[in-house]
């Protein structure tokens, strides 16, 4: 009886089975269980709350429509991640194209990010704590992420914040594993280059601090 009521304790597999059998409300268990984690992914992919919320809703709609294609042995959370990542690529690519028609490109040029990041650390020794408190710096970090292509951003976010494997990322990008590894690498290299002035000194400060303790 408890299985038929859509209890929060019900497993994903049971909820999927009931949904496919025609019980639409069974899908509620899946939506409520996975929404927050999909939102975190979507926010990191899109960089803003409005787009993230749209991505979450669309991901669950698409997952429902394609639920027959879901393989029982797979993980529903990972699957819906992939759908969300795939949709956010489309959405943000389209948005960037529309923005590019309206805006001057200078505000998003990578070199401007680097210059402004360098200006933030005139004394050359920001501590990790200071980095965390620096709101302006976080804006620059966000801007560095914005400078990645949507595929690079997706690959990086899925890999480093959500622990996804290369095969899962490749599926979201609709690419192969070799090309996906290259995409992750390109994303890391771009971020290294853009953020080197700050991060390098932060690492230096940390290293000096740890030596002092030792």
């Amino acid at each position, binding site marked *: 009886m408890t299985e038929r009521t859509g209890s929060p304790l019900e497993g994903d597999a049971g909820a999927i089975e009931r949904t496919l059998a025609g019980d639409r409300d069974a899908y509620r268990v899946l939506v409520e269980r996975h929404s927050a984690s999909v939102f975190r992914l979507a*926010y990191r992919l899109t960089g803003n709350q409005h787009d993230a919320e749209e991505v979450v809703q669309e991901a669950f*709609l698409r997952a429902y429509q394609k639920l027959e294609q879901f393989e029982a042995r797979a993980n529903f959370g990972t699957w819906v991640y992939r759908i969300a990542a795939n949709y956010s690529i489309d959405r943000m690519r389209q948005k960037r194209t529309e923005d590019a028609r309206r805006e001057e490109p200078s505000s998003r040029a990578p070199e401007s990010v680097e210059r402004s990041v360098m200006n933030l650390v005139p004394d050359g020794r920001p501590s990790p704590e200071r980095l965390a408190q620096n709101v302006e710096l*976080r804006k620059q970090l966000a801007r560095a992420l914005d400078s990645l292509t949507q595929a690079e951003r997706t690959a990086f976010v899925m890999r480093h914040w959500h622990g996804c494997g290369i095969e899962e990322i490749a599926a979201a990008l609709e690419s192969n594993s070799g090309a996906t590894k290259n995409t992750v690498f390109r994303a890391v290299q771009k971020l290294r280059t853009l953020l080197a002035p700050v991060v*390098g000194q932060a690492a230096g400060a940390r290293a000096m601090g740890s030596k002092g303790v030792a």
Partner: protein
Amino acid sequence: MTHPSGEELIAYREGEAAESAAVAEHLRECDGCRAKFARLNEELTALFAALDTLEVPDPGGDYGQRVWKEVAPKLQPKLQPLRGDASRDVERVRWRQGLFAGQLFGEGLFTPRRFAAFAGVAALVVVAFFAGRGVRRPDVPVANNSPVNMREKVLLLAVGEHLGRSEMMLTELSNTEGKKSGAQLIDISIEQKRAEDLLSENRLYRQTAMELGDGRIANVLDDLERVLLDVAHSPDEVNGAQLQAIRERIETGGILFKVRVVGEELEERQRATPAESGKLQNNRKKV
């Protein structure tokens, strides 16, 4: 092994290097590479730590419930498969449920591009209506001008043009210059953008074809949609191997052949309404 590149060291750090054992062995033996890897490791640790300071807003404890409230009205019940003509009725019911329950609105029907496609169909309805009145012969039965028949004629015209444009784009992509193994990047952003636009129209026409019970057109549009999706989701720039993979996807499903066959069939069917078919035939001659 030779000294690993920066890319190989990053892949090794990520646990994704194809030759991780060889890299590990090399790092044990080579002081220079070991120092290089230590610097890289420290730099990446600091980079990721800095990026970790980017906060994600808390959507709230009731976020899942709020998402469900938004999503639930847009979900169509998953009906059990029915046999015979009843299954077509189910598809029609689903279409209408989707329209009125807001599924299409949820998918962004009234985004500018879809609105344009929808407006295009609406304009064609008006044009076809008046064109149909102008060319009607005395011996044409009145039933042929019923709303359903008129919608079918408009669908034939619109889909014919859509197939012509799709065929043109896929043919151009198939003929794009690029060596199979070349590393040089080829810009396909124009084709990609066209595929995105065609995709929006394709969905609308496929749904209309389903509503009118024209399974043959709906099936071809369904096949075409997959290929358009592949192209629309490709990178802006591709190397020779990636371009070849796209070409193979186009060729494997025989989509160009299907599009041509159905396009020619539509021309045949359009000949019953010559005023409307002129535009279609002109378009297809360009392909």
